């Protein structure tokens, strides 16, 4: 009886375990469960051209993807090909030496990619690129065209315009913004999407050159304006979570949503009839350059220890090709990192245009290489700012002193 029970349990366990992948095919790991069908289509295109190679696409949960991947790679059971995160998230995986180094010799098309795109998949210590970047994301303002038209509003050119438009919506009984900040990472989003133009390109350049830190008055001034405009966020927005905020916008209850370009596909799915527009939040004056915040959010890498290196590199070259970039943009409605891709969907084309005037999405791109990460600090400091527990000056000071723990230019 006991034996039977035990063997039943073992059998159940064995059934539950996924069957190991067959040796002649390449496994390809991803965190994009929702894109599985499209990727399988891309893979079909590749397989038709490369008989003898098959690619198996497997997906895992996004939040724990890095943990799963590192575990598998460290245990020698990793995939041949995989999605990688960017910046600090890529380095934690690459620093173990698990990823195949990429350069002009094995993936020639890489030399055509933009420098910021390549930087997202390049380890800072040895300047080696480990992955083919796949997409960029842009922090901007999305608005409901019908609501804007009905209230006679157009895309704001100056900060005053922006406030006036918000005021008008509020007076008309429409929530100007749908955003809430109870979900920590949304605090970083509103900074990138609302006040990049106010902090400005010169602040970014000085910050990178080590000539400025976050106590700089351009940055503090930007935070002051951020605090000011949250007056037009929903009542109790500090207790409003991300999902609810999306819901307010997609159900047409709010005029604007500050968020990433990834929201566009989301909102389209939730409410196919809604007409959306996008703009870069303005600077203080109409003539100030309007900036969006840009980052790259993933790449494709190969396992350094793959048994089918030739086939894996062949597939990476396919992923870096114009042909793939175009399919990626068409089918996944994302801004492909491959240069020269055109966009069928007009809104995506607009995003690509806005990207011509951008600064990096600061904390994610430059400050996730140590603990405390700039993102963690910023999210918590902005929650303090918006909850009335800190002034913009204090936020700037806390960011700088917090990052000084590991960011050399801030060490005094």
């Amino acid at each position, binding site marked *: 009886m006991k034996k039977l029970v035990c063997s039943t349990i073992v059998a159940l366990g064995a059934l539950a375990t996924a069957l190991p992948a067959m040796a002649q095919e390449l496994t390809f790991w991803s965190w994009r469960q929702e894109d599985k069908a499209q990727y399988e289509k891309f893979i079909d295109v590749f397989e038709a051209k490369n008989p003898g190679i098959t690619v198996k696409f497997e997906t895992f949960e996004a939040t724990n993807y890095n943990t799963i991947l590192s575990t598998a790679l460290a245990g020698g059971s990793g995939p041949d090909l995989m999605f990688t995160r960017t910046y600090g998230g890529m380095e934690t995986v690459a620093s173990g030496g698990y990823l195949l180094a990429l350069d002009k010799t094995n993936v020639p098309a890489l030399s055509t990619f933009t420098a910021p795109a390549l930087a997202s998949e390049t380890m800072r210590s040895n300047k080696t690129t480990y992955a083919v970047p796949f997409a960029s994301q842009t922090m901007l303002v999305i608005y409901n065209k019908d609501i804007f038209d009905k209230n006679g509003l157009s895309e704001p050119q100056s900060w005053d315009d922006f406030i006036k438009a918000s005021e008008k919506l509020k007076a008309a009984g429409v929530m100007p913004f749908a955003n809430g900040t109870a979900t920590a990472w949304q605090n970083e989003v509103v900074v990138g999407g609302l006040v990049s133009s106010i902090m400005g390109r010169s602040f970014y350049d000085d910050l990178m050159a080590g000539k400025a830190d976050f106590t700089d008055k351009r940055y503090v001034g930007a935070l002051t304006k951020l605090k000011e405009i949250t007056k037009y966020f929903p009542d*109790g927005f500090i207790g409003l979570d991300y999902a609810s905020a999306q819901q307010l916008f997609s159900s047409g209850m709010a005029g604007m949503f500050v968020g990433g370009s990834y929201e566009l596909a989301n909102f389209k799915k939730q409410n196919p009839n809604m007409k959306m527009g996008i703009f870069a939040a303005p600077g203080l004056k109409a003539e100030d350059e309007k900036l969006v915040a840009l980052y790259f959010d993933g790449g494709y890498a190969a396992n350094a220890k793959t048994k089918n290196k030739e086939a894996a590199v062949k597939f990476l070259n396919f992923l870096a090709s114009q042909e793939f970039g175009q399919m990626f943009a068409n089918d996944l409605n994302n801004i492909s990192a491959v240069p020269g891709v055109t966009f069928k969907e007009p809104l995506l084309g607009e995003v690509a245009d806005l990207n011509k005037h951008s600064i990096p999405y600061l904390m994610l791109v430059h400050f996730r290489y140590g603990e405390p990460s700039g993102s963690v600090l910023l999210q918590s400091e902005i929650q303090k700012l918006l909850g009335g527990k800190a002034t913009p000056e204090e936020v700037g000071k806390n960011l700088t002193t917090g990052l000084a723990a590991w960011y050399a230019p801030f060490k005094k």
Partner: protein
Amino acid sequence: MPGSPLVSRRLWISALIVPPLAFVALFVVYPIISAFAYAFFHWNGLARGEFVGFANFYKVLFTQPYADWTVNAFLHNVWVFFALMVLQNGLGFLLAYCLWRELPGAAFHRISVFLPVVLSTIIVGFLWKLFLHPLFGVVNISFRGLGLGGLAQPWLGQDSTALWSLIIANAWHMVGFPTLVFLAGMQRIPGEILDAVRMETESEWTKITKIVWPLVAPSATVVFTLLFVGSFNWFEIPYVMVGLEGSPHGATDVLGLYFYRTAFGNMSGSGQDFGAGSALAVLIFVFIALVAGIITFKLRAREIQI
């Protein structure tokens, strides 16, 4: 049966105890000992690096920002423990005392007070998160409906109310447990003792302090210890209701969330650190074992005195 009876008896006893012992050794004792060992190593992701002595402990206790995070989370756990002591165990004792009277309907009240206890913490967390939603939650809708719109708050978004909201959700979930443990203790008090007391005094208060409380003290010891261990392990309710970061700005951060973030990383951090995570686990563990030991010892001693 082959062999001498003595040998076969020994074999039989071994066959009975070795499998369960091996199981506990492999999946309880070994991991806990390893947790201690891991804290003394540097970790590269999931690969163990060199021996670093107390460096990980030093890191989480004395270097910034870890030191502040550790203290912040720890103090919240302490706060949660004392708040639940009153809201959950205190109320539990009162309810048990009321149920003990066996008034009409007591059976129904007993079933309903214990009902939330059987629900998953995840369900309880989601339920209260929806109730406390700033715009559409039933709590704020009710206040507005009663014309008390001023009382409507972003409960989970402001530091003055967020932790309390989690504590109340937890108390709602678990109050039935101490209630029924205390009730079982009260029901075991012999009738003669109660009759004797009734002859002497009218006062409920005297009855509670002199008779009921001392006699349910053994149950109280267990309930207090469990609450202590639970409070310092607190994870699911805050995870579901405010997220891994202990929003807003760490106002609801507790050791469980902090340990998880440190060990496994979160979307906005710089990655996972098994070394610092293990050090935290060991510290929490030693703290729990020490205090739980003291509670049990002290309360036991008092039980005997009484």
